[in-house]
């Protein structure tokens, strides 16, 4: 059953600025949807529109089949976790978690039971009588989630909940959020600008750019078949190498001197893309093209090599290669690479759409 449906949802501010032109999305029950995009792409606005904190100026928002466009946030049966947690500083952890239930007229005994259940699930038992000021960042994050969970809502909304945590804690909480969501099977809408978070958490991803959904799909769909150059560059780290080229009978001409043979019906200006991890080191005989090494980043398990394509073009084309294991090529040296055909991505140079 579809839980949350966005039909032609749009937002235009009173000053005429169109933050979100139109988005269609239908979310199944228990699905984990991640809205991802660079800052200012409208992902938070969209989430806040679902929450009821921003008005919807166009389209319909349906939760469990009911149109909730004009309902107050409290009446939409949603719960939200904010980036800064937004815990009430003067209330204890228990009071923070209870507050929503209290306003709903839930009895004291029931409130107590619910809080204890959730506290046990999140490991907050010991902290119930403390105030937010006495908690660490990770604990506050947990309380914020607990506050959302006690309400037992139909939809969870997360607004960049992990961006205030340090790297290690972020990884830990990411796993925890995923496990909790699986366990509770509550439909979830999660906003982030971090593509690793997006890839690891999502059942389906929505990549937003300037208020438009560039692509909606599973993380692997987006990785394997990015619909646009924007998605191609956004998903994956380091991002995909994209080079300008021309598709002709002979193949892809990346410059006057460099062409890659390929049979394709399309003719004209394209963008040719390949992910850094799909480039392979080779020798001068078998290599498709060569690279002049400019910087080497050794990460232990893998090595990132930044270089410039030796194609005789006036504008140097930067290329990133990701090789597993340690490699130490000299700066300025030449490196031959092969680009396996099955990993190529071709995009129309004008529309930026996948060919």
């Amino acid at each position: 059953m579809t839980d949350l449906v966005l039909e032609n949802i749009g937002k235009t501010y009173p000053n005429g600025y169109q933050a979100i032109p139109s988005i269609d999305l239908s979310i199944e029950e228990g699905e984990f949807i991640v809205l991802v995009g660079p800052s200012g792409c409208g992902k938070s606005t969209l989430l806040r529109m679902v929450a009821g904190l921003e008005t919807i100026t166009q389209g319909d928002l349906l939760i469990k089949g009911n149109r909730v466009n004009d309902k107050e946030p409290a009446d939409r049966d949603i719960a939200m976790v904010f980036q800064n947690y937004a815990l009430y500083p003067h209330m204890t952890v228990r009071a923070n978690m209870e507050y929503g239930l209290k306003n709903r007229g839930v009895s004291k005994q029931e409130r107590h039971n619910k809080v204890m259940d959730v506290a046990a699930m999140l490991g907050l038992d010991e902290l119930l009588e403390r105030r937010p000021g006495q908690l660490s960042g990770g604990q506050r994050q947990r309380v914020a989630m607990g506050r959302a969970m006690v309400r037992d809502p139909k939809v969870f909304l997360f607004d960049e909940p992990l961006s205030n945590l340090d790297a290690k804690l972020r990884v830990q909480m990411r796993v925890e959020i995923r496990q909790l969501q699986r366990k509770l099977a509550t439909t979830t809408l999660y906003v982030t600008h971090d593509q690793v978070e997006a890839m690891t958490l999502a059942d389906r991803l929505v990549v937003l750019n300037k208020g438009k959904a560039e692509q909606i799909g599973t993380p692997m769909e987006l990785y394997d078949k990015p619909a646009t150059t924007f998605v191609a560059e956004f998903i994956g780290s380091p991002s995909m190498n994209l080079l300008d080229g021309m598709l002709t009978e002979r193949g892809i001409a990346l410059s006057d001197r460099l062409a890659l043979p390929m049979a394709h019906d399309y003719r004209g200006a394209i963008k040719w893309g390949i992910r850094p991890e799909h480039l392979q080191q080779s020798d001068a005989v078998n290599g498709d093209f060569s690279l002049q090494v400019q910087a080497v980043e050794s990460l232990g398990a893998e090595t990132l090599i930044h270089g410039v394509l030796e194609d005789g073009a006036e504008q140097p084309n930067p290329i990133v290669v990701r090789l597993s294991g340690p490699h130490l090529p000299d700066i300025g040296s030449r490196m031959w690479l092969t680009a396996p055909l099955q990993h190529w991505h071709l995009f129309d140079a004008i529309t930026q759409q996948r060919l």
Partner: protein
Amino acid sequence: MIENRPWLRFFSHLILVVGVFLVALPVWVALVGSTQPEGSFNSGSIPMWFGDQGVQNWAHVLFAEAGSTLQIPVWHLLLNSLVMALGITLGKIAISIVSAYAIVFFRFPFRGVIFWIIFITLMLPVEVRIVPTYQVIANLDMLNSYSGLILPLIASATATFLFRQCFMSIPGELVEAARIDGAGPIRFFFDILLPMSRTNIAALFVIMFIYGWNQYLWPLIITTDDTYYTLVMSIKSMLSVPDGDIQWNYVMVTTLLAMLPPVAVVVGMQKLFVKGLVDAEK
């Protein structure tokens, strides 16, 4: 100062000691004077050490009468002052916190204009509007009453402004979290806003209590019945003796009594007061 220069140290201590001396000397004179027998000030020299009349003087002033011109015990004046000061303070806090709440959290037409009108009233202290205010209070038949003493002084642009600044520093996400938790405007005000501005209320309480306590001109104008006299204004009337000597020993007792409540408020609330001004929480 991190560096350690003996002369600088000596000099700064000297300034502090002189400052303390200047402030403390009049208080000392008042304290000593309050224990002197009648007439000891009239001999031409100011006594600098305690006399033997302390208990009698204090008992007389507190419970019998304040002096020959004021046939009313000082405890009654203290009570009047307390009622007025507390009334003004609580009224100011209540009115300004509600108006700041409206200005910060609600979108209504002419919101900005209304705020500026409130702000401009800063330029109209009691002294400026005293004649029309008197007229209004007289027409309302509130001369010689506690409400007459309190009501004209309870609107405060300063307090409204301070609460506004305090409310504006509350993160928007907190307001939104409360909305999602189903807290309407009234609930939000009492459950979240009021407890969060606790320290600001305390700081304003201190400032406004002292302001109310020290009111001189307004009580002087609207009270003609000495059962409504306040302590601060009666000191002046104790000094204006038509013939005979000023009873300095009684004046000193009254002065000290007038000083005590503000001191008590400041000492008692100084922790909250400082916290409210520097605003560490949130």
